[in-house]
């Protein structure tokens, strides 16, 4: 069942001089979903996010915002009613955006007031966010004294202070260590669970895998694909990788016997036997049987399922090959 749209990007193109940053992009952001936008550096991710909320005007095409009043959708161009659009989303950019010399609470209160929140509502929102973001203990700490992860969380809190329907995160985990990244993703999940639509871009594709409902892939200013992570993986990477380590590791006897059994490639890489196949379950069984027959003692076996990285690589490689 299709969800209700929040943003409609229709045939949008954007250029800066001779440089075409986005070409004919069309995406619909659906209410309550987490949508990830991936692409190499310079592929147009940030430009797309900026166009989405009207920071930049498109050269061609339109970006519409859909507002629901008593369940009835009202569609308008994001450039026409910037104040309404601004109230509807929270944007956390790559660089945290708040006043370094104000405390955590002061920042939240200030930005809350910029959204015309009443004192009570503001206080309630700030308290909820401080708790949600794990910043309650640091609420009176000056922002510049926060750690990198806390700064990122404060930035998201600032973006969320007015309870927007859509949260846009541009590379929210850039420059963060894995632990901090996980914290952020956890928070994003929690925010989404509250019903907030999340639009994000990230380089850490595998982390988006479990988080995003849909992934949009941008390449060379074009939208290459948009779908759920699973469908993308299936679409672009049917081959899975089996890694086997055995003792004494005489794989030369096994390799010839596996050829032709719907195996894409087979090779020895160090002490491991690497098998790429579209039917991993069947091939694992066959390999294990052959190892047993060959007197090999199984030390380790891994199945590398395809991930978004693979999809990404595949997309980019495919394009290059086409070229």
């Amino acid at each position, binding site marked *: 069942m299709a969800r209700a749209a929040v943003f409609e990007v229709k045939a949008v193109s954007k250029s*800066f001089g001779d*440089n075409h940053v986005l070409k004919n992009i069309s995406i619909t952001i659906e209410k309550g979903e987490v949508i990830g936008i991936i692409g190499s550096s310079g592929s147009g991710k940030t430009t797309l996010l900026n166009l989405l909320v009207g920071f930049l005007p498109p050269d061609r095409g339109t970006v519409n915002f859909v507002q629901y009043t008593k369940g009835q959708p009202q569609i308008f161009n994001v450039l026409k009613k910037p104040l309404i659009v601004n109230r509807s989303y929270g944007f956390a950019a790559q660089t945290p955006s708040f006043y370094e010399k104000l405390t955590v609470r002061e920042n939240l209160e200030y930005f809350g007031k*910029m959204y015309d929140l009443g004192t009570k509502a503001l206080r309630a929102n700030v308290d909820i966010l401080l708790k949600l973001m794990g910043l309650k203990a640091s609420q009176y700490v000056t922002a510049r004294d926060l750690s990198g992860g806390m700064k990122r969380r404060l930035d998201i809190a600032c*973006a969320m202070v007015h309870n927007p329907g859509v949260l846009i995160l541009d590379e929210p985990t850039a420059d963060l260590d894995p632990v901090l990244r996980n914290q952020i993703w956890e928070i994003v999940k929690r925010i989404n669970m509250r019903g907030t639509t999340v639009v994000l871009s990230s380089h850490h594709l595998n982390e988006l895998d479990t988080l995003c409902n849909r992934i949009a892939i941008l390449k060379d200013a074009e939208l290459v694909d948009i779908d759920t992570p699973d469908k993308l993986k299936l679409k672009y990477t049917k081959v899975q990788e089996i890694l086997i380590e055995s003792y004494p590791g005489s794989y030369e006897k096994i390799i010839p016997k596996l050829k032709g059994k719907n195996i894409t490639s087979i090779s020895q890489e160090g002490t491991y036997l690497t098998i790429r196949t579209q039917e991993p379950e069947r091939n694992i069984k066959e390999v294990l049987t052959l190892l047993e027959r060959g007197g090999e003692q199984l030390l380790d076996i891994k199945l590398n399922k395809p991930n978004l990285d693979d999809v990404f690589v595949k997309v980019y490689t495919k394009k290059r090959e086409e070229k």
Partner: protein
Amino acid sequence: MKGPAVIAKNLKLLFRSRETAFTIVFGPLLIILLVSAAYTGGDTDTQLHVGAYSPEYTALADDIISALNEKGYRVSVFANESMCTDMIKTGQVHTCVLFPSDFSIKEDESQVVRFAVDYSRINLVYEIIDGLSQEFQVQSTSITEELTSDVLQRLALAQEEVHDQLATGEGLETKLDLVQSEMAESRSSLGSVDVNVSFADLKDIRGRVTGLSGMITEIKAESIDAIEAAEATLRDARSEVENETRDSVDDTMDLLENATATILDIADDAPTAVTEVNYIIDDAADAMEKVQERFGQLVSASEEVDDRLATSKGEIDTALSELTTLRGKLQHVDRSLQEVLGFQASSVAAPITTRIEPVTSEDSNLTFTYPYVLMLVIMFLGLMLSSSLIVMDKTSNAAFRNFTTATRDEYHILFSFITTFFILLGQTLIILLVSYFFVKAPLFNNFAVSLVVIFFAITLFSFLGMIIGYVAGTQEAAMISSLSLGSVLLFVSNLVLPLEAMNQVVSILSSYNPYVVLSELLKQSMLFNLRLVDTGGRIGLLVLTILILFGLIIAVQRSFKSKFFQRRSKDLAANAFAPRARKIKPLSLMHHEVKDLFDLLEVLDHMTRADFEQVIAGGKNPIAAWVRLEVGEKGLARRMDTRSKERMILALDKYIKRRSKRLQKKK
């Protein structure tokens, strides 16, 4: 060698930032340029606006006004004194020349012309006073010359008259000499007449007649006495006849005998005396004849004298007439000299004197400069504080979030301004309070109007600072720009040099300098109790400027916001602003594909003359066209637009070598 590397790095950093490059390199140049332009070609005289008022515009007053006009002063005539002095207070007139009533040249008193001046224009007032005093000195000297010339003229006239009358005097002298001579001659004529008649005989006759008469009288008396005595004796004898009758009669007889003797004597003498009288009468008759003769001589002399007197009378009449003329002339000379004597030495030496009258009762230089200094402080504080605040806000990480909140940009601008406004207002009030106790200036005299001016000043300079803030990229650039702008506004103002001393165009433009307008308003409010209604169009001008500046702030803020989002896009950083290599469409030249200038040189080198002529046969030079349109080297294309293959190769070779050298130098 780390030092040069550091210096090179620093220079690159400075010059690759547009704002810093501009403010550091071009800022000072701009300031110098503006200031030089402002102070070059200044001519104080032509810029001064002089007001004039005279209760009666006499010929002398008109002459002086005309002379001032001719000297290049802009002179305006006012209907009354206060109108003129009010114009000084508003700065529209630099000084008022106030003529006295019945202003004319008077020999007996100096005329005092008053200059009303604004001493708060410290750097101009003395120039005005000197200039006008000099002008009046010239006028005064001219009048002195006139007066002296008049005196000399009168003296010359007197001298001429006296000289003329000397001749008259000499004539009179001659005439009088003549009269004198006539008189002498008359005297001589009369003197020659012998009027000496001897009257001795006559006297003698008279003596004798007198003697005779005396004798007769004596006889008479003696006779009478004798008779009376006889009578008395007789009467006594009657009474005393018995006693003494004999003696008395004897005595009486004696007396009568004596009387008779005497009478006889006299009678004896009388004929002799008559004879003598007859002699004497004869003598007298002789004498009378002589007298008659003499009278005849005298009549003759008298006639002569009469003639001479007639001549002398004529001469004397002429002399009298001349003397009347002489008297008239001398009276004229006397009057002229009297008039000259009536001249006052001071009124001749300085017929016009000037008196300086300040239009304000304040006399302290500090009081005069205080409004300028206060406005200077407000200007620099306003420029620096607001620009600093804007740069701080826009370069902070929070800028992005501010732009994306549901708050209009105008709100941010407005409240940034209000922040600056209240800080500046607080600072200004503190400065005023402190100054009130230390400067002892009438700062709070007209405080309501002063406060309005201060409000305008804070607003205007804050807005200017905000524009700088949005244009400048860094805090440093904003500071330098603010200081530069402040310096320019300061230099092109009345504080350093009077506007009137500047180039006329700059002077006119500078009169719109907000610092000039505001500092003048503040000064007039503090020193002259300026009312808002009297500010003329200046408040309107300020309001207009503020509105324009607000519009500019919104424009630059929007421009900055637009660029801000563009810059934030990594996509743009990666691609959009990277220069793209120009794709050159190859030139097909005699079966060769020429991709660049090196290819072209090689192909041309190997091309036969016949082939070359074939290439350029159509009238157009496709090689030059390709160099111009595809390679984009217009200069080279121009040099290669030739029908000579050798020249073309030479031009191309030269160009390539030059470019190679440049590249090597760069490396």
